[in-house]
């Protein structure tokens, strides 16, 4: 078998144009998910109330279902449902089917990432001993101040490796966005490949781009981690 290198170069250049879309989905999803996930993690730490139980149920539901299935459900069911709700029940004049598909991508990946991150944050908050909270309170800080100044900064450092994992996983799963007709790296490559059945070459190109992107993300997180964890210096003398 011989690879069509001309095609590969062409596809590579074309697929590069999908990078901004892939990154947009990744970044927007993270920005949407992180605050909600953090709030959920706090809810689950203070075990009382139904907030904690609802959160736990949501997390195990989302994590227990394949993301492909979530996409299929959300993308095929939600528009019809919304259409019915908004236009029939509420009698608004809203074109549900004109919603840009990338919004659906934000929704699906956001649902998943929120669930994963809430677990990440929860265990990170647990790594900071309760004793530091008590010490903060005993010198007069409020709980809120203690969280903001003492607990969260440390929890974030210990969460970074897991946040990095989550980000890499998210970045990779955005390649499913083509199912929702989003024009990301994967979608562009597939279209290119379809002209002359050069699927192998197209997938190789996509593979290369994802490896590059994921490596970059990991390097970025390493740098941030090194910067933030300066207080963990070892005894030098």
């Amino acid at each position, binding site marked *: 078998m011989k690879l069509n290198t001309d095609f590969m170069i062409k596809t590579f250049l074309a697929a590069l144009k999908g990078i901004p879309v892939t990154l947009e989905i990744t970044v927007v999803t993270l920005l949407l998910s992180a605050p909600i996930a953090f709030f959920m993690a706090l809810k689950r730490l203070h075990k009382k109330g139904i907030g904690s139980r609802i959160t736990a149920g949501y997390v195990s539901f989302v994590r227990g279902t394949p993301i492909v299935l979530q996409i299929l459900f959300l993308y095929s069911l939600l528009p019809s449902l919304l259409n019915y709700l908004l236009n029939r029940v509420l009698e608004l004049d809203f074109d549900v089917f004109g919603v840009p598909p990338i919004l659906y991508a934000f929704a699906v990946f956001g649902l998943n990432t929120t669930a994963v991150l809430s677990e990440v944050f929860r265990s990170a908050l647990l790594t*900071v*001993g309760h*004793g*530091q909270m*008590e*010490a*903060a*309170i*005993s*010198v*007069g*800080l*409020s709980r809120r*101040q203690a969280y903001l*100044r*003492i607990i969260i*900064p*440390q929890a974030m*450092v210990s969460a970074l490796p897991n946040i990095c994992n989550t980000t890499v996983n998210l970045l990779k799963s955005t390649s499913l966005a083509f199912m929702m007709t989003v024009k990301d790296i994967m979608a562009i490559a597939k279209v290119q490949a379809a002209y002359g059945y050069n699927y192998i070459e197209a997938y190789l190109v996509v593979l290369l781009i994802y490896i590059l992107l994921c490596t970059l993300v990991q390097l970025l997180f390493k740098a941030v981690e090194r910067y933030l964890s300066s*207080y*963990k*210096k*070892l*005894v*030098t003398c």
Partner: protein
Amino acid sequence: MLEVKDIHKSYSGNEILKGVSLKVEKGDIIVILGPSGSGKTTLLRCLNFLERAEKGSIDFDGIHTEFKSATGHQINEIRKRTGFVFQNYNLFANKTALQNVTEGLIVARKVPKKEAVDRAKQALDKVGLSDRYDYYPSQLSGGQQQRVGIARAIAVNPDVILFDEPTSALDPELVGEVLNVMKSLAEEGATMVVVTHEMGFAQDVASRVVFMDGGTIVEEGTPHEIFSRPRDPRTIQFLRRILREDYEYSI
């Protein structure tokens, strides 16, 4: 200055403090002794509202507070008047020694930064750490960490400092430096309530020794009264056991 009356505290139906009353005058050094599980830690934690007692009251310079119904404001007032030194130091791991001490001044008490830094440095100097201002807890020995913990507690000028076994997490050779710091604080007139198993410290420094067992105060008196003429059989048994351990340890 400080008087607690009839503290009761249970955990899931299990009564741990069964009506403890304690009076502390300015300049008192009260050492609390007692076997493991007798409720010493719980007592200190209730005083600082780290746990909420179900019954009892605390009078601080004539200000009366019921544990059960204390408001957030009342709790803050009492916490402002008390410092707490923890068995496991509980230093803020993401802050330097200096920042550990300034935190309560700047954030909680709104002391201007420059003044806070000066006061924090004084406190650290007092515990012998003038050369460790910018070290993180992970760069300090256990004894040094506990001394930062003491500096953090005294910097806010509390009326009384509560110590919960401040030396029991330390290697034996580091115990002395922490006890010396506490001794010099006592000589300067600080008011302290100290839970410890260091009998030497109790004998030398305490103005009053309190012996607790099973969630009540069994006996209290001067160090001389408790160590030379204990009356209650539980005190006698406890002292015999602990002094024997000390003796065996020293040979």
